[in-house]
């Protein structure tokens, strides 16, 4: 499968970003790497999408940012989840799972259902 072609559904990127920060603060580059690795190289987040998404989440108050030093001693902006971000993540995961289950169920249909009888 061509990874670059896999488009993100609206809102999906946000939940992935939030998820990637569950174990602690990460900078933007690490977030891309996390998503890429965890999706078995299926989801490549483009920089042009990632950073605006990060900033948006930060301005909404779901993420908090702080400057720090990266593994190789460069200054980098680290993002972490705020309390509200954690709450939002829980909610988003639930929504996403319900959505995915519903889509999967529809797609798994094998035959036309009997029409319901009018009472």
């Amino acid at each position, binding site marked *: 499968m061509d990874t670059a072609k896999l488009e993100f559904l609206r809102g999906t990127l946000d939940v992935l970003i939030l998820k990637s920060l569950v174990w602690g603060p990460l900078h933007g580059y690490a977030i891309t790497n996390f998503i890429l690795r965890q999706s078995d190289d299926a989801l490549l987040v483009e*920089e042009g999408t990632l950073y605006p998404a990060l900033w948006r989440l930060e301005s909404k108050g779901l993420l908090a940012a702080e400057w720090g030093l990266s593994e190789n001693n460069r200054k980098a902006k680290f993002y972490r989840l705020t309390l509200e971000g954690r709450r939002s993540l829980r909610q988003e995961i639930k929504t996403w799972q319900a959505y995915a289950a519903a889509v999967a169920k529809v797609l798994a249909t094998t035959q036309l259902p009997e029409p319901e009888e009018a009472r």
Partner: protein
Amino acid sequence: MTTTPFWRRYARFFGPDPAADVKDELSFHLDAKTDELIRQGLSPGAARKEAERQFGDLRSVQRIGQQIGQKTERRRRMGDYWTDLLHDLRYTFRTLRRDPGFAAISLLILALAIGANVAVFSVVNTILLRPLPFPHSNELVWIAPPPSECGWSCATYSADAYEEFSSMSRAYQGVTGYEAFTTPENFRLTGHGEPVPVTGMEVIGNFFQVLGVQPQMGRLFTLEEARGPVIPNSTGTPVVLLANAYWRRQFHSDPAIIGQAIELNGAPVTVVGALPESFDYGAVFAPGAKADLFVPVSLDTERMWGNIVTLVGRMKPGVTVAQALDDAKRVAPDMYFNTKYPQSKGRYKGNLVPVPLKDYVTGKLRRSLIALWFAVGTILLIAGVNLSNLLLARAAARAKEFAMRGALGASRGRIIRQLLMESLVLSCAGAVLGLGLALAVIRWLAHQGSLALPLLNSLGIDGQVVGWTVLVAILTAMIFGLLPGLRMASGNLQEMLKDSGAGAGLGRKHERIRATLVISEIALACVLLVSAGLLLRSFSKVLEVDLGFQPDHASSINVAYDESAPTVEARVLKRTAIFQEVLTRVGAIPGVQAAGISDYLPLGPNRSWDTPVPKGKVFAPGELPEPLVYVITPGFIRAMGMGLQGRDFTWADGPNSEKVIIINASMARRFWPGEDPVNKILMRDGGNAQYRVIGVVDDVHEESVESSIGAQVYYPCTQQGPSRAQLVVRSSLPPATLAPAVLRALRELNPYQPASEFRPIRTIVDHAVSPRRFFMLLVATFAGLGLLLATLGIYGVISYSVTRQTSEIGVRMALGATGGRVQRQVLANTLKLTAAGIAIGTLIAIVVARAIASLLFATSPWDFPSYMGMALALLVIALVSGYIPARRASAVNPMEALRNN
């Protein structure tokens, strides 16, 4: 992630920079990517290129980042700001609650000062700033000759002149006017029980159309109605428009009355409409007077009467007053006084001067109102200075609190903001109270019908007034909050934190500032006191003016009579008989000393006829003035208490005996300088009519108390027709006691005599001087307020300095100073402050007094007693307010004072 390295703390030393943050963040990303690509085996150069390629459009991402960053930053800052503000506000309320005495006094001061300012502003706004209450009121002009001494007759125009001017002028959309000689209670409403006196204005048919007044109900007059039949005793046609107030009062705003007939002077008249509440004739054209109803004046009947109508024009859009004047100059030479007399052509040359109606209505008050505005502004300044002083005293007590906050990291700006917040809260609360106060004053003023100020009916609190209040409140907060704020914030923290406090340098510096404030307060109060003194002196001079008659113990009432008869001679006889009977009956009432009748009374509207010429003398045309005319009965001169040389008219001066006349002193001087005018002959009508001068009376103030006096003549009612009858009764009995008896006597003679007001002559004088009294009272009130505030200021500063010096006083007393000596020194300090204030204040007052010289009457701006009174008043209050702290100082117990330190 490791902890933030120390240098990061300074990376944004000059405040947050979202743009740089975005750049840093993205460049880190590129670097990290490049590193990884190098690890995968690319050359550094190629790795960099590949990283940039993968990133895509770096610029646009950066732009998005900057926008989001700025927005976040702004929001954060706003959030901080509001949090701080709320915090300051809570803190303010807490501190004010802790010191209720301070809060109460400052609120009182602020409420008085702001209330006075708001009230005066609303008067100024109503009279000066707002346009007149007519649509496109800037198009309206008042057309009148230049001022003269012959009263309304020289300020009005004949019916012919009106029509000619109206048709020949090109500058106007419409010209209109009203009958200037209409007098109060000229009608009586009958058919509703007891006859009720009514004041009806006779207006030219298009009066309301030109002013742009729409009826609230019914319709306005039609052109035909201005030319219809005549109702008795008036020159109008039997249609009438009701003023809103009268419609409400007399007919309870009954809509059914429109279209119905009411009975005026015994004849039915149809009510065609009711005018809106917004139209108040008296408020615009005759301050302090009222008009109950309006009838169209019939120009055809008035044509023979000479000058009778005033002119009001509505200029065409875009026409300026200067253009209207040019137009009038063009028209005037072709205008006739009376088209029947060709020689009357051009008589109005130079006598048609349009001025904006607004200037005519309010122009005379402009200076007084501006002076009032300044006075009230001064009050605000004094109040501000006073509060500044109070706050400084408080700040001194709170110095340690602020030093502590400063030491704990509060910025200077933050502390100033905190103090400004306190003053803002105080002044806003003061403004709310003041607005309430102003509302009460304005309500009261708007109902002062007898106050001869125009437009008072539309006085009220509107958006502009509220806006002004807010402005004043903020300004005041700035005045009194900024200085203490700056003082506190600039203080030396350490010095303040040290416990020594009293006697330290800061205290002294503080005291200097406070002394300066008190001196300026005294100086401002000084200016107010001198102005009030000068106005007070002017007012008392006005009251002392010899009016030419004795207003006390005399009252007047409008007498209704019916002189209708087929011939002129019969009318004279009938009228004479009626007047004689009236005077006999009224004169017989116990307590009545004198009674007489005149058609016009002093200090009101008046008229003139023509210029009589002294027989045997030659004057250039136009050299002699046109005297005002009064038609009177025998006894009137005595009833009014006028001085008379020669003899009064008698009933024997009948229609067939020699024509006689009485003139006033000014006229005597002008017509027969250095001669005795008695028994001289005056000629009218080219010598066809000759009048023997039988007496000379004192000059009577006819226009206003303050204006100069022209020529006046008196004709006997037995030889000349009066336009109406004003009975004047002189008696030491109070008017209220006398009124029923007089009215009963009049009713016995004429059952249609309405229950007219029995008005003390004094009220006519009061009405004439009411604007001056109004301004004088206001300025005097402000001066009193200023004096009170200055007292508070002096007391505050002296009392504080005594408290601060308690230990010093203690030492001095321990070393042998007596209580009396300490007391004297405190008083001396007080007087020093006051003297400095008076000295500076006097200098300013001299400048101010010269500026208001035109408002003074017979009082010099250098008037010594005013300055003296001011200085005395200030010295007395200084002594009083210094005495209390002085007493306290002398009662200091040396042992205790020393121990406390």
